[in-house]
């Protein structure tokens, strides 16, 4: 993959994340499992898939 192709992917990822935050709100991001304190009570999805 060329540097230009990588840059296009990086830009697309930024666009996608920012659009999702705009659509769902910053709290939706804050409730992801990567934030340990916000997901303690959540039921985790089984890993097998």
């Amino acid at each position, binding site marked *: *993959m060329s540097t*230009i*192709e*990588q840059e*296009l*992917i*990086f*830009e*697309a*990822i*930024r*666009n*996608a*994340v*920012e*659009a*999702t*935050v705009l*659509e*769902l709100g*910053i709290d*939706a*991001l*804050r*409730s*992801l*499992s*990567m*934030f*340990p*304190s*916000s*997901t303690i009570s*959540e*039921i*985790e*999805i*089984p*890993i*097998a*898939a």
Partner: protein
Amino acid sequence: MEIVRLLTSDDSWDKFEKEWANQCEEVGDAFDSYGAGPVSVTRQLAQNGSQTEWAIALFDAKNNRSVACACAILATQKGYTGKVLRIREVIVCPLLDYGSLPETEYVDTLIGLLNGAVKLSESSLKAKHIKLHLRSPSDAIFFRAVGKSLDSQGVFAATESHGAWLSFTKQSSAPLRAV
């Protein structure tokens, strides 16, 4: 931001652990219990030194801070042509988790993580597919929306959701169009 490998055989894991222990102290938490499950699994990968199973951190050089850690596992998988890079057990740093950093850093961290996975799949852990483990219902809702948006931009050959995983398949030879 860049992905760095964490190992106990050099001082990278120790430095990381001390940094997050200090952050925990700053926010009034204990590192021993902070993200205990994911951190424990990540520590095991830092200890085993495998060529294909890495403990990684997302390092913010500008602020001299590790903002997230995770497991990056290179594997072959039935149904996939080419290697698969799985990103699992992602945990953000205590300062982010406790809201001690600006909200913009939440967004930057997630972008840095996804971009870092792409870079890793093009360098040390070469893979055609990148899979992100969705550990909770909130993850599934959020990342499927990210995947849908990415799909509409056409930079990946495919963006699909399978059970608790979101997968990105990179283009092989077709040129990418501008977004």
